[in-house]
């Protein structure tokens, strides 16, 4: 498997940490993370369409998008609290289905040389329970994705 993602959710903390390397230079990865047309093409589960309302990646900019599938629509929004172009993005994150549960995420972009980069995302939830609920939702979603991918493999 190329470039596996590492995810940790340490017990007793309200954190989720994600690290992923990419076979692309850091400025390309940062572009894909900050230009709305590119973000719409990868952010979120494959089974949803991504509808971006706004995505203004600069210090103080706002963002809002929805994941949609048929009648389902899941909205998310926040602000970019601090942006150092090419290096880091710190933003708030709120799911419309759980108003008031705002988390804080910082993504940092680093150069591994050889046209490769690393993105590290540190997410902080308002409580351990909120962090656990996020991992739970990922588990359900991930299991669905996992089974769908298993289906694809099995039907090949």
């Amino acid at each position: 498997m190329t470039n596996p993602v590492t995810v940790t959710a340490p017990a007793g903390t309200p954190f989720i940490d994600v690290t992923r390397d990419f076979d692309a230079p850091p400025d390309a990865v940062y572009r894909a993370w900050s230009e709305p047309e590119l973000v719409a093409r990868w952010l979120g589960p494959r089974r949803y369409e991504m509808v971006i309302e706004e995505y203004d990646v600069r210090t103080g900019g706002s963002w809002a998008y929805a994941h949609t599938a048929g009648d389902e629509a899941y909205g998310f929004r926040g602000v970019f609290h601090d942006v150092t172009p090419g290096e880091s993005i710190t933003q708030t994150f709120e799911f419309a289905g759980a108003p008031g549960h705002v988390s804080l995420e910082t993504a940092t972009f680093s150069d591994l040389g050889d046209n490769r980069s690393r993105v590290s995302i540190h997410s902080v939830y308002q409580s351990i329970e909120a962090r656990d609920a996020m991992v739970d939702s990922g588990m359900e979603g991930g299991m669905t994705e996992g089974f769908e991918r298993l289906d694809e493999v099995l039907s090949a």
Partner: protein
Amino acid sequence: MANTSTVTDDIALGTALDSAFLALADPVRRAIIARLSRGSATVNELAEPFAITKQAVSRHIQVLEAAGLITRTREGQRRPCHLDPAALERLTSWIDGYRLAAESQFRQLDAVLASLPEQTPQ
């Protein structure tokens, strides 16, 4: 002629996997499994996050029990549900679902990056 007991074992395993997958083909049941992977709970505790009736949650729990994914014990007045340890091995662990979702997303990002025009060397 094929060894009969081997064929029977395969059918039994296939049926068990079918019922486990079918049991999980429901978002409420997946949420129940997710909650039980963090620790045992009673029907009341499991029903709490959902807008559906406690009876509906009980029916979901029966389906999960029939699929061998959860067991129930009696502790005085309480009848807590437990994620079956063997089933836990077969299913992805608690964090892996989140990891799978993240992986799927980053593979899409890989495809986006591969589609960008060549960067000029720095």
